[in-house]
């Protein structure tokens, strides 16, 4: 695993605008960064990332199975009681999932460690599945990269295939796709999924989350009053369950992507549960519910995170029992977990994080993100990768 400097394609920004990649620069900061790339060996990809990703995912599913069958765990995971049935029935019905992203700490050798599972609303999908694919194709074509350079990235192929399977499962020709207003990044991600669904022969109608309505018949509706029967939402379950229309979820009978059982997986309570069930697994970091962690955190370095949080908010660091707040924020009312601190590897001045994608239960590629701070925030840069 190396970080290789390289020459950006001279026309890449124009290309980005032609392909509708509008969030390569965000908040005045570069997000897509092709002044460098990461190079992996095939063995690193297959043995250290791909295989553990598949295994970690199966372990996560085992946790879901435990949790949906236990009222005390559902409570521990802060799933609102009136929605237990929603989460449980989506699991028992085997409602299909689309995708997820495991964040891994990996430095090129030794076991990758699971930091968290973005199982519900992962982004950086377009950059990974399409844009870095195009970067590789073009740099191979123009001779900048070796002809046999490859990339761990079958995301688009697998997403299209998965949409075909989902269409068949629910016997549908159409679905809705939704995200919040005022975010180019989320809208871009959803547009990409609309493109993938269209490639699979599915008609994908877009509606903003805020525009979803409820009809006299109990169904959710789009702005044309058409019923929403099947819907991909880039919006977290933990919000949906607690908002006003949450009460209507049960009777609206929507086939959601991701399905409601993902509310268990995208929850940081997953991490202590994994450690309870698979303690000592080489790809896991020791982790505890914070109210069960007194003994463990008395020594060593730990990260404390809320059950639900985004953008790295409300994170503290615990050093030999002493707590230091790293970031403030609005989260934490549902409780916290602690996780053994595992430093991100550094390449030059950069802290590097691997996002390992799954489409359903199949590993489908990686994204590499860099940050100048040790705990990755949302302002990290996306850097492409190759296998050589």
């Amino acid at each position, binding site marked *: 695993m190396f970080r290789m400097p390289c020459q950006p394609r001279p026309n890449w920004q124009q290309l980005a605008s*032609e392909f509708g990649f509008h969030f390569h620069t965000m908040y005045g900061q570069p997000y897509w960064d092709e002044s460098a790339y990461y190079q992996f060996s095939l063995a690193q990809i297959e043995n250290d990332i791909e295989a553990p990703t598949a295994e970690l995912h199966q372990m996560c599913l085992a946790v879901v199975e435990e949790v949906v069958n236990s009222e005390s765990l559902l409570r521990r995971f802060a799933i609102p009681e009136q929605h237990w049935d929603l989460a449980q029935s989506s699991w028992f019905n085997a409602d299909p999932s689309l995708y997820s992203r495991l964040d891994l700490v990996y430095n090129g050798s030794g076991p990758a460690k699971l930091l968290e599972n973005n199982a519900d609303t992962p982004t950086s999908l377009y950059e990974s599945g399409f844009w870095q694919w195009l970067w590789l194709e073009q740099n191979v074509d123009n001779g900048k990269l070796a002809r046999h350079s490859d990339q761990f990235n079958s995301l688009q192929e697998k997403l299209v295939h998965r949409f075909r399977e989902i269409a068949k499962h629910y016997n549908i020709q159409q679905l809705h796709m939704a995200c919040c207003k005022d975010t180019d990044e989320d809208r871009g991600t959803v547009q990409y999924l609309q493109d993938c669904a269209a490639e699979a022969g599915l008609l994908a109608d877009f509606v903003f989350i805020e525009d979803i309505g409820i009809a006299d018949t109990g169904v959710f509706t789009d702005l044309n009053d058409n019923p929403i029967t099947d819907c991909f939402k880039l919006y977290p379950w933990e919000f949906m369950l607690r908002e006003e229309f949450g009460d209507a979820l049960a009777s609206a009978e929507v086939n959601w992507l991701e399905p409601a059982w993902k509310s268990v997986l995208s929850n940081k309570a997953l991490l202590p549960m994994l450690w309870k069930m698979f303690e000592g697994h080489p790809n896991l970091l020791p982790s505890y519910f914070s109210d069960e962690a007194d003994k463990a955190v008395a020594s060593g370095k730990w990260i404390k995170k809320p059950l639900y949080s985004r953008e790295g908010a409300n994170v503290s660091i615990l050093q030999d029992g002493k707590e230091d707040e790293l970031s403030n924020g609005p989260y934490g009312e549902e409780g916290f977990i602690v996780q053994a601190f595992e430093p991100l590897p550094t390449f030059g001045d950069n802290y590097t994080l691997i996002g390992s994608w799954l489409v359903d239960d199949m590993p489908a590629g990686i994204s590499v993100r860099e940050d100048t701070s040790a705990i990755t925030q949302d302002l990290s840069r996306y850097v492409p990768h190759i296998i050589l």
Partner: protein
Amino acid sequence: MTDSTDNTNKQGPLGSSLSDSNCESSYKTSCKNTSTSDGSWMSTQALPETNAEPEAKTKRSKYINLSRMRKTFSVKPLALGVASVMLSACGAEREEAKIYTSIDDCKLDYPDALEKCEAAYKTAADEALRTSPRFNSEYDCEYEFGPNQCRNVNTSGGSFFMPFMAGYMVSSLLSPNRYYSQPLYTSSSYNSPFRSRWITADGHVFDGDIRKRNYRVSKDQLKPKPTVNRTMKRGGFGSSVRAKSSWGSSSRKGGWGG
């Protein structure tokens, strides 16, 4: 049961020309579900030249259709999609269907199946409640359907106006498996394009005037119509974004992807 490619000039029971006009006067894309592109064409496309070297095994997507991913200068979908929908709808199989304006009408045709006539009427009446066009005011409804053609309905979801069912279309009444029955409407309003014609709940206008009672219709026309939904409220999702976005930090606002 019918020739699926040429049914426009056949003589019906009344000896009239029976073009059912399925493809001419439907003002909504009521047959859009017949579009069954499964998208599989992509996999049959030739690989582009850049991938011409047969590589044993790659870890990346083998082929991505770049022209489909391009957002500027891309034309097509809609017109193409609509055209193919219409074609497939025109080729669909047809069924004999008859329109009755009362239960007794039906009983005259089926003296041995009186209960079925009653059941078919009940089915149509129930369907009318579920699928008929709805209006906020009597004026709007009568503008479309004519004076005294509308009734007020009160449900838990609110009060609104819908046209009276003017008739019901029945097909395969004696079929042991399943008969079809759906409500039909007509208009006496001079403002309406379907004045004195039969129209379904989802807006399909049959050719000929309301004296015409026998049709050959595509199976899609006999399928149950979608439930009509009146949106009572919007904005019940998305409030967490506003609440959580306001805590203010250097962090990015907006997106909730992880």
